């Protein structure tokens, strides 16, 4: 069954072009920004025109019955839309003369992957670019493809949805699921904005911080991040938003519906709170004993850093470099763990960690028991007790294997390029790969190009969950070798 569709690549280019022009709205509130709007309008318009041309002139052939073709098409589309986004999102910084090409690309990648590492100094940057940074994290937090599905009816929407790494179907209709996710998070952003505003931020900062906390992204509009406000209430409110951001969207909806009893039983949620309390307490006491801070202050610092890392937000709270090594280590572990699957956070995801731990425990038990014994792994999900299948276990463990391999290679590379110690490189690369964006001091306006490139690769691999990139690379390789073979045959 073949059918010619109008080109989805064109549609995506139009959408991304339109989204890029959104920060221009800032001009309504601040007239002085008008001199910068060309750097948004120009790439936006070009992208839209190009998109229309492609959509009209190239028809795509869609095969619906063949699994591998389907997988290939959706993988390619997802990869294209993300890389196109990275490129287009970097143009305003570059055209506006704010950053050089690699730096602006870095800022764009860090924005769309909701990492939060930055080479921009907020106080020296026009407000329109700060809005652009926040809006990039807004789009990246939802996922570009999710936005595409929401707007445009597409028969292969599910393939795209899963290819981008979303795991849940909340409603019996994919487009409605996408819209539900969109509405939920927008509602939370509004609530977050009101909260921050009431606690004393100005409106622009409140919107930006609500978005970046909820999407566990981490860009701030102030040089010193959360310290600027010097308010415990704001910090605690930010923590609540971060925790909400690292909870699975389906579970979040159940919380709205008041089904606390079911939520309380979910293994992943329990595990998350155990980790937060355990790691938070250890870091609290470590900070308390190793510094002159009082108990309350060290408690806030300890818990903030742990939740900040676990939810992979990475907003700036205190100078990480001065912390005790034990706290740093706990932070690295929490960053790698990440939040719940199907949330806005990054990292390996807690569900995979739970499967890993349960498998490890089971294999230990098996070593000491009869060979005929059969053990199975189960957990509580939102829809009741579920058995974890062997296929899932295999996939999970190989994912974690890939993740750790990339982590090792990346941190070594970073240590070479940034000329820092291996421990610092490890921290910084774990932070990029998991999408946390907490910097130990390596990344900044003066960082060299190679370091930025290594970190960019880490962030992209982390956000798109490795496999899709490997699959994409495989297709690309096949395509190239096919071309070469044909060329030789001629």
């Amino acid at each position, binding site marked *: 069954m073949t059918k010619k569709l109008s080109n989805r690549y064109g549609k995506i280019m139009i959408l991304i072009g339109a989204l890029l022009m959104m920060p221009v709205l800032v001009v309504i509130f601040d007239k002085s920004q008008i001199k910068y709007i060309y750097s948004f309008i120009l790439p936006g318009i070009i992208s839209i025109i190009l998109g229309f041309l492609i959509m009209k002139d190239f028809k795509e052939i869609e095969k619906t019955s063949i699994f591998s073709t389907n997988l290939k098409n959706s993988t390619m589309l997802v990869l294209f839309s993300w890389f196109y986004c990275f490129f287009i999102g970097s143009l305003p910084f570059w055209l506006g003369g704010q950053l050089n090409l690699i730096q602006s690309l870095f800022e764009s990648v860090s924005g769309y992957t909701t990492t939060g590492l930055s080479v921009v100094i907020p106080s020296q940057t026009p407000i329109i670019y700060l809005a652009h940074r926040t809006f990039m994290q807004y789009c990246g937090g939802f996922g570009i493809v999710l936005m595409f599905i929401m707007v445009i009816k597409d028969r292969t929407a599910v393939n795209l949805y899963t290819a981008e790494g979303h795991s849940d179907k909340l*409603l019996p209709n994919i487009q409605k699921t996408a819209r539900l996710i969109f509405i939920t998070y927008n509602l939370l952003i509004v609530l977050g904005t009101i909260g921050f505003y009431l606690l004393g931020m100005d409106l622009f900062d409140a919107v930006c911080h609500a978005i970046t906390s909820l999407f566990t992204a981490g860009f701030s509009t102030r040089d010193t991040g959360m310290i600027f406000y010097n308010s415990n209430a704001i910090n605690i409110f930010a923590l609540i938003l971060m925790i909400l951001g690292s909870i699975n969207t389906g579970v979040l909806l159940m919380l709205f519906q008041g089904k606390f009893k079911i939520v309380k039983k979910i293994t992943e949620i329990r595990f998350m709170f155990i980790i937060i309390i355990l790691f938070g307490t250890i870091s609290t006491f470590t900070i308390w004993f190793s510094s002159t801070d009082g108990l309350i202050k060290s408690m806030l610092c300890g818990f903030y850093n742990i939740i900040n890392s676990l939810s992979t937000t990475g907003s700036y709270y205190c100078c990480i470099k001065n912390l005790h090594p034990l706290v740093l280590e706990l932070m690295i572990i929490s960053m790698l763990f990440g939040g719940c699957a199907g949330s806005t956070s990054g990292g390996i995801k807690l569900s995979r960690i739970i499967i890993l731990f349960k498998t490890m425990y089971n294999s230990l038990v098996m070593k000491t028991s009869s060979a005929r014994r059969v053990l199975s792994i189960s957990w509580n999900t*939102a829809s009741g007790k579920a058995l974890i299948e062997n296929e899932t276990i295999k996939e999970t463990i190989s994912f974690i294997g890939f993740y750790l391999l990339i982590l090792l290679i990346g941190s070594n590379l970073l240590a070479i390029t940034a000329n820092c110690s291996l421990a610092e490189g490890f921290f910084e690369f774990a932070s990029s790969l998991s999408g946390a964006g907490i910097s130990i001091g390596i990344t900044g306006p003066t960082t060299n190009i190679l370091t930025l490139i290594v970190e960019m690769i880490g962030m992209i691999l982390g956000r798109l969950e490795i496999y899709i990139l490997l699959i994409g690379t495989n297709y690309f390789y096949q395509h190239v070798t096919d071309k070469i073979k044909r060329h030789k045959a001629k």
Partner: protein
Amino acid sequence: MIKRNTNKLTIIAGCGRLGAELANSISEANGDVIIIDNNKDSLRRLSFSFGGIAIVKDGTDIDVLKQANIEKAHTVIAVTDDENTNIMIALMAKKLFHVKNVILRVNDNSKQALYNDTDIQILCPSELTTKAVKKMIEGGK
């Protein structure tokens, strides 16, 4: 997990050849569809771009039907491979949950007494085939 106000929701019990094809076509037409089957392997019949929800549980379980939001369902289609299961699901949908459209597939019309006094819509392949064949024969004359 499932939101309440779904409009025109179709619940299909049994992901066999017929169930899967129905589910695929409804999903492709951008409708809301939930399919229930207690065997995970039969979900393979669903197309790669199936956008609805698949529940791997027993369709005769009231809790499972409630989880599938049967109270809000517009249509329930019972097409498992087991006759008695089909009748039971259809009756539950009609009598307990008062679903508007209930479609039941039966191969053998001998259990008519069970559903005769309800307004369950019956789909009997052998009867339909007989009618179609008759029409073909008469048309051939």
